[in-house]
């Protein structure tokens, strides 16, 4: 196991710079997820750690060793690819044993390591099958088995669950997390799915357009998003963002209504700002502001309501069962303690800066 350190890493393809100086420190044994929308550079960054892309500028270190010019096979890492990248002409056993065979490991070692990986992943019955005879989830497991057999310093996962159906994805999510808890190998995991990031990571690196937007634990990102991008990206359904200005101790939304300011707001009077409130932090209150219900989506555990609040659509998620029907008026209020304020020019968080 080893730490991974990225210092001011840049990457250009031709004249296009796709990573603009990324610095992240990943601790020994940590499970870090790189998350961001398509094209934000997260996969490129992972491939650079793997050595499949060269580093244009900056420094990548695994453990104490700078690996910028080290060949992928010398880096002591294992990677699980999005489409598994299994060797189609080899059996499950041979797929997993390939790296050991190349390293000319003795048969007993190969058997032991492959056997252990197969047992961890429940592949023991499938060792003689070919990849084409396996289901998506099984192929995914073989790809992980191939990584485990290597017993590497670092595991790299490149969107490993995106080709699986929803149910299997949830199951594999738990398995990967369990695997990490069992092996404690440093893991860097790339996904565009923020739920995956929230549920699995020790720490999340939110990326956007080649920049790191915020690094933190899942709950830090949820509770204290550093900017508008993170606020909108983390959390499902997404945070409601209302434009307006801070005026006389309240937030006056553009549509005219006044919302209570979050505690400890350090800002000048009469500043334009964006007020963020998560759907689950809006409550039904008799003294709340009136809103017109547009859509009601009961999910069983909660009820999502899309309502127009003085003309602005907001999404609310209520734990209680709501009997309102479209067209009805409900009275709702944000929980001021849990509201977020952002500068509408820079997009940075205003209230409660760390």
């Amino acid at each position, binding site marked *: 196991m080893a730490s991974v350190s990225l210092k001011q890493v840049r990457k250009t393809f031709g004249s296009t710079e796709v990573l603009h100086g990324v610095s992240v420190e990943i601790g020994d044994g940590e499970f870090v997820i790189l998350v961001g929308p398509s094209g934000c550079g997260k996969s490129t960054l992972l491939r650079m750690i793997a*050595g499949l892309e060269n580093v244009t500028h900056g420094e990548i270190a695994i453990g104490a060793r700078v690996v910028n010019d080290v060949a992928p*096979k010398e880096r002591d890492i294992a990677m699980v690819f999005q489409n598994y*990248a299994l060797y*189609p002409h080899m059996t499950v056993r041979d797929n997993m044993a390939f*790296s050991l065979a*190349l390293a000319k490991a003795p048969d007993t070692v190969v058997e032991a390591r492959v056997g252990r990986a197969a047992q961890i992943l429940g592949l023991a019955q499938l060792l003689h099958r070919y990849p084409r005879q396996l289901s998506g989830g099984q192929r995914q497991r073989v790809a992980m088995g191939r990584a485990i057999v290597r017993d590497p310093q670092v595991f790299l996962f490149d969107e490993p669950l995106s080709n699986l159906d929803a149910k299997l994805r949830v199951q594999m999510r738990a398995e990967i997390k369990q695997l990490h808890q069992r092996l404690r190998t440093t893991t860097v995991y790339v996904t565009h799915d923020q739920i995956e990031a929230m549920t699995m990571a020790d720490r999340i690196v939110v990326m956007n357009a080649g920049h790191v937007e915020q690094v933190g634990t899942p709950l830090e990102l949820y509770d204290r998003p550093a900017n508008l991008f993170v606020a909108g990206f983390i959390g499902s359904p997404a945070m409601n963002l209302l434009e307006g200005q801070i005026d006389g101790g309240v937030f006056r939304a553009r549509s005219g209504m006044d919302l209570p300011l979050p505690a400890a707001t350090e800002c000048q009077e009469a500043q334009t700002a964006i007020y963020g409130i998560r759907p689950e932090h809006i409550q039904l209150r008799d003294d709340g502001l009136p809103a017109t219900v547009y859509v009601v989506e009961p999910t069983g555990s909660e009820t999502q309501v899309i309502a127009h609040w003085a003309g602005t659509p907001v999404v609310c998620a209520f734990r209680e069962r709501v009997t309102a029907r479209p067209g009805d008026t409900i009275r709702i209020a944000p929980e001021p303690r849990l509201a977020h304020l952002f500068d509408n020019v820079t997009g940075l968080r205003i209230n409660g800066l760390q």
Partner: protein
Amino acid sequence: MPDGIDAPRETATRRKLSRRNYARSYWLFILPAGVVVAAVILFPWAFTLFMSLQDMHVGSAMSFAGLANYRRMLDDDRFLWAILRTLYFTSLSVFFPTIIGVAAAVCFNKHFPLRSLARTIFILPMMATPVAVALVWTMMFHPQLGVLNYLLTSAGLPPSTWVYDSATVIPTLVMVETWQWTPLVMLIVLGGLASLPADPYEAAQLDGANGWQCFRHITLPLVWPFILVALVLRAVDALKAFDTIFVISGGGPGTSSETLNLYLYQQAFAYYDIGFASAIVVVFFALIMLVTLLLMRRRSATS
């Protein structure tokens, strides 16, 4: 509403009926193709088989000979040597184009400047007319006036006898065959290489494979079905090679490059022994089928 219920059932029955009618008239559509196949493949075949059982010389009466023509082959040294020579020629002209073709395909699968131009130049031999090419090679092989010996002596090497010596004639013919048909193998294998997924290579890179190991353990097994197709085509082509050999050496010196095809040509059109030549054709056909089937079997075993 009885109409509403009955209507779909009625259309269903009608559809089934019309489908059956189609089935009845299918044979009309395959009739033209069937006539052509019968006229140019089945009839010649049956007639060849018939002729092989006759004592039949051009210009003389025909009589039934039973298996005499086939029995004659067993005692005919020239025929047996022709078979061995055919196999010798075929194995060499399958081996070299395949090795060089695969190597060339791997090279052309990589990016380098002027790749398209180089590839076009590489496949030019395949597009040339075999007889014209053979005539040019014949000139180049001339011991005194040919450019090849001039080049050899200029480089300080001893001149070769090329097609004028029974020891060198078949390797020389194989050289021409290789020059002309390596591009075909290259094209087939290049098509295969282009269809290979890229990600197993990245996985192999991380698994610690070097360039040769990637080729040996990933490229070769994955592209093997394509190589087998090239092998089958090349084997069939080499077995029935005629024009190049006929023009360059005519089966000589003596009979030292006389393959089965040339031998049966001699029997049929020089000695006019149509019965015996037909019997050779039947055996030749069996040989080609056997080699092809063996290769195809290898193919289905791997895929």
